[in-house]
C-alpha cells in the first residue's frame, strides 16, 4: 500500500449507492437497483478489510509483537469550521476501536443487505428501501470514523434520520408512522444531552477532537470530578437515547414496526450500539469520573434487568427480540460502567452477530408464516423451516451463554469485570446474573413457541425462505458460534490486545483463573435454569404457563403492559405537552397572533379610512381651504425661528445644542 487507506471511500460508497438508487431507482430495473445496493456495502467492507490488512503489514514495523502498526491513522479532508478559537476538521480516524466497529457495520450490514434482497423482493418501494439502507450505512460509517465530536454528531443525527425513514417505511400504516416519530422525538432528548456535552467539552478543552481532548486530560492529572462528571453524564444522556437505555428506551420496541431486516441492522446490530461506541470513544472522560462510571453501570444493569422482565411475557416475536436488545445493550453499558470497555465492545460484536441472526431468523419465520408475528399462532416450524430452525437454535444458544458460544465469552467478561469492581460491582454482577437467567428463559420460550409443538394456526402454509435469505443466516450462525473465540484468554485474549491499543487494557484486581472459571460456571448455571423453566412451561402444550399467569395475575399484568411506562410517559409528558401545544396553536397562534393581528390591521385601516373619508367631501372649496392651510403651515414651519423657541423651553436641537 502506498500510504493512504482511502478511508473516505468507506462512507462515500454507500452514499453513492444512496444517491444513485434514491434519484434513479424508480426507473432502474430491479436487478440494477440490487447490484448498486449490494456493491456499496461490499466495496466499503473491502476497503475496511484492506485497511486492516495493510495496517498489519510488517513492511512498516518489523516488530511482530505489535498488532497494529499504523494506528491510530488520521485522514483529514480539510477544514470544516474555523471561527476564532473553534477549529473543526473533516477528519477520519482509524484505530482498533473504529476498525472493529467498521468491520461489524459493513460486514453484518452487507449480509443484511443480501438478506433484504429476498425479504423485500415483493415490496413496492424496493429501490427506496435500499436507498435508505445505504444512506444509513453512510451515516453510520461517518459516525464511527469521525475524529471529532461534531462530525460524530453529524453521523449520529444522520443514523437517526435513516432510522426514522426506515421505521416509517410502510408509511401508509399509522402505527409505523407513529413509531418513526416516537423514535425521532425520544432520540431528540438524548441528542440534547449530547449537544450540551459537546458545549461543555468546547468550553473546557477548546477543542472537539477526541485525541486532543485525551492529550489535554493526560497532561493534567489533577483534573477530576465536577465538570468532567457533568460532561460525561451529558454525553451519556445522548448515549442512553441512541442506545435505548432507561428511561429513554421506549422508542426501540415500537421501532419494530419497520421491516425486519431494518430491525436487525439498525435496531439490533449497529445503530443502537452507537451509544456504547460513543462512551468507549470518550472513555478518557469517564475514566476520570467515578461517579459518571457508576451511573453508567447502574443504568446499564437496571436496563438489562428491566427489559428482560418485560421480554418474559411478550407474544410478538419481534418485540421479545426488541426487549432482548435493550437488555443486551444494558449489559454493554454495564461493561462500560465498570471500565471494561474492551469487554463491552466485545459483547457489542458478538451481540451484532447473534442478534442480527435472531432478527433475520425471526424475519424468515414471519416471511414463511405470511407476515404473522404472533408467537401464539406459530409452533412446530422446525419441520417446515429447517435452516431457519438450526440457525435460530445457534443464536438462542449463543445469547443464552451456552458454553463456548459467542456470548458465553463476552457476557462472562462483562459479569466478571463487574464482580471485580468493588462492592457496587457485586450487586451489579448479581443483577446481571439474574438477567442472564431471564434472557435464557425468554429466548428458549421464543424458541419453543415458534419451532416446537404443533402449528397453532391452520390457515397458513409455512415454507422455508429462499437461498438469498438463508445464506446470510448460515454465515451469521457460524459467526455466532465461533465468534467468541477471538476473545478467549487472559484479558480477552487477542481481541483485548487488539483493542487495548485504543481503550487501554483493563487490569482486573486480584482475580484468579479459578474464580474466573467459577464465574463462568455460575453464568452457565443461570442459563441452564432459564432453559429448564422454559422447557417445563413451553416444550409441550400445557396449561402450566397460563396457570402461572393467573396465579400471579398482578405482576403478570404489570409485565404484559410493560410496567405501564408508555402510559406514564403519555400521562406526564405527552398529554400535557399536546394540551399545551394545542392551547398555543388554537389560542396564542390562531386567535391572538393570526386573528388578533389580522383584526388589528383591518381595524386600523378601517378607522383611518373612516376619518380620512371626511376630507373627501367633494366640496371644491373645502379642498381649497385645506390647500391654503397646508401652505400656511409650511410657511410657518420655514420661517418661524424654531431652534430659539425650543431653546427657550429647554430643548436643544441641531447646531444650537452642539455649540
Amino acid at each position, binding site marked *: 500500500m502506498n500510504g493512504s487507506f482511502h478511508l473516505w471511500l468507506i462512507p462515500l460508497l454507500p452514499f453513492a449507492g444512496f444517491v444513485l438508487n434514491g434519484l434513479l431507482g424508480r426507473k432502474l430495473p430491479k436487478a440494477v437497483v440490487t447490484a448498486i445496493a449490494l456493491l456499496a456495502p461490499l466495496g466499503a467492507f473491502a476497503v475496511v478489510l484492506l485497511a486492516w490488512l495493510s495496517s498489519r503489514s510488517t513492511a512498516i514495523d518489523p516488530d511482530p509483537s505489535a498488532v497494529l502498526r499504523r494506528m491510530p491513522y488520521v485522514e483529514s479532508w480539510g477544514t470544516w469550521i474555523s471561527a476564532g478559537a473553534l477549529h473543526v476538521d473533516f477528519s477520519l480516524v482509524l484505530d482498533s476501536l473504529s476498525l472493529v466497529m467498521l468491520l461489524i457495520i459493513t460486514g453484518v450490514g452487507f449480509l443484511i443487505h443480501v438478506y433484504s434482497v429476498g425479504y423485500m423482493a415483493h415490496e413496492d418501494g424496493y429501490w427506496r428501501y435500499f436507498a435508505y439502507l445505504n444512506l444509513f450505512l453512510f451515516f453510520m460509517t461517518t459516525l464511527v470514523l469521525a475524529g471529532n465530536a461534531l462530525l460524530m454528531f453529524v453521523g449520529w443525527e444522520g443514523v437517526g434520520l435513516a432510522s426514522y425513514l426506515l421505521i416509517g417505511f410502510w408509511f401508509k400504516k399509522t402505527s409505523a408512522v407513529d413509531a418513526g416519530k416516537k423514535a425521532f422525538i425520544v432520540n431528540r432528548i438524548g441528542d440534547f444531552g449530547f449537544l450540551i456535552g459537546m458545549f461543555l467539552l468546547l468550553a473546557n478543552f477548546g477543542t472537539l477532537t477526541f485525541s486532543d481532548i485525551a492529550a489535554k486530560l493526560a497532561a493534567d492529572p489533577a483534573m477530576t470530578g465536577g465538570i468532567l462528571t457533568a460532561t460525561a453524564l451529558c454525553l451519556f444522556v445522548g448515549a442512553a437515547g441512541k442506545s435505548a437505555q432507561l428511561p429513554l428506551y421506549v422508542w426501540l420496541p415500537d421501532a419494530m414496526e419497520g421491516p425486519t431486516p431494518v430491525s436487525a441492522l439498525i435496531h439490533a446490530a449497529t445503530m443502537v450500539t452507537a451509544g456504547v461506541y460513543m462512551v468507549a470513544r470518550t472513555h478518557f472522560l469517564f475514566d476520570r469520573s467515578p461517579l459518571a462510571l457508576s451511573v453508567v453501570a447502574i443504568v446499564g444493569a437496571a436496563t438489562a434487568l428491566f427489559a428482560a422482565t418485560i421480554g418474559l411475557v411478550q407474544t410478538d416475536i419481534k418485540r421479545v427480540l426488541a426487549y432482548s436488545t435493550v437488555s443486551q445493550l444494558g449489559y454493554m453499558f454495564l461493561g462500560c460502567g465498570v471500565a471494561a470497555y474492551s469487554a463491552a465492545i466485545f459483547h457489542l460484536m458478538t451481540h451484532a452477530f447473534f442478534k442480527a441472526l435472531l432478527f433475520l431468523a425471526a424475519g424468515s419465520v414471519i416471511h414463511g408464516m405470511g407476515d404473522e408475528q404472533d408467537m401464539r399462532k406459530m409452533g412446530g416450524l422446525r419441520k417446515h423451516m429447517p435452516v431457519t430452525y438450526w440457525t435460530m437454535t445457534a443464536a438462542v444458544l449463543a445469547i443464552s451463554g451456552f458454553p463456548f458460544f459467542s456470548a458465553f465469552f463476552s457476557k462472562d467478561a462483562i459479569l466478571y469485570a463487574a464482580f471485580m469492581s468493588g462492592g457496587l460491582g457485586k450487586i451489579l454482577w448479581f443483577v446481571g446474573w439474574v438477567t442472564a437467567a431471564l434472557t435464557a428463559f425468554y429466548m428458549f420460550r421464543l424458541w419453543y413457541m415458534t419451532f416446537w409443538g404443533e402449528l397453532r394456526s391452520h390457515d397458513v402454509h409455512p415454507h422455508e425462505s429462499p437461498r438469498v435469505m438463508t445464506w446470510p443466516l448460515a454465515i451469521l450462525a457460524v459467526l455466532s458460534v465461533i465468534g467468541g473465540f477471538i476473545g478467549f484468554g487472559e484479558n480477552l485474549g487477542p481481541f483485548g490486545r487488539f483493542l487495548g491499543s485504543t481503550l487501554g487494557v483493563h487490569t482486573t484486581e486480584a482475580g484468579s483463573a479459578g474464580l474466573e472459571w467459577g464465574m463462568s460456571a455460575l453464568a452457565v448455571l443461570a442459563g441452564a435454569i432459564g432453559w429448564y423453566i422454559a422447557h417445563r412451561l413451553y416444550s409441550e402444550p400445557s396449561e402450566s404457563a397460563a396457570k402461572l399467569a393467573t396465579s400471579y395475575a398482578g405482576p403478570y399484568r404489570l409485565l404484559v403492559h410493560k410496567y405501564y411506562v408508555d402510559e406514564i410517559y403519555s400521562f406526564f409528558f405527552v398529554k400535557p405537552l399536546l394540551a399545551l401545544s394545542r392551547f398555543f396553536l388554537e389560542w396564542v397562534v390562531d386567535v391572538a397572533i393570526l386573528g388578533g393581528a389580522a383584526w388589528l390591521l383591518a381595524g386600523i385601516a378601517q378607522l383611518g379610512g373612516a376619518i380620512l373619508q371626511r376630507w373627501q367631501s367633494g*366640496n*371644491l372649496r373645502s379642498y381649497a*381651504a385645506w390647500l391654503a392651510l397646508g401652505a400656511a403651515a409650511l410657511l410657518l414651519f420655514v420661517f418661524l425661528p424654531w431652534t430659539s423657541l425650543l431653546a427657550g423651553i429647554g430643548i436643544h436641537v441641531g447646531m444650537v445644542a452642539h455649540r
Partner: protein
Amino acid sequence: MNVPLSWYLMLSAVLFALGVVGFLIKRNLITVFMSIELMLNAVNLSFVTFAHQWHAVKGQIFVFFVMMVAAAEAAVGLAIIIAVFRARATLAVDRIDLMKL
C-alpha cells in the same frame, strides 16, 4: 423713475392673496376660475420683477410658459364649465360635489 423691488413684490403678494381669498369665498365657478388666473398672474409679476432686478432673461421666459399653460387651462376649464352647466344648470361650486366618495 425707479420703483423699488419690494413694491412689485408687495403688489404680487396682494394680488395672490386676493386670488386665494376669491378662490375660497366665491361660489360662482367662473369667478373661482378667474381667481386662479389672478394667482397665476401674481406669480408672473414676481417672475418678471426678479428677472428685471437680476438682469436674467430666464424669469421672463418662464412667464411665457406660465401664460401658455394658463391659456390651455382656460380653454379646457371653460369647456368643462360649459359641460357642467349644461348637465346641472348651475355654476355654484357647493353643488358640484360629484367627486365625493
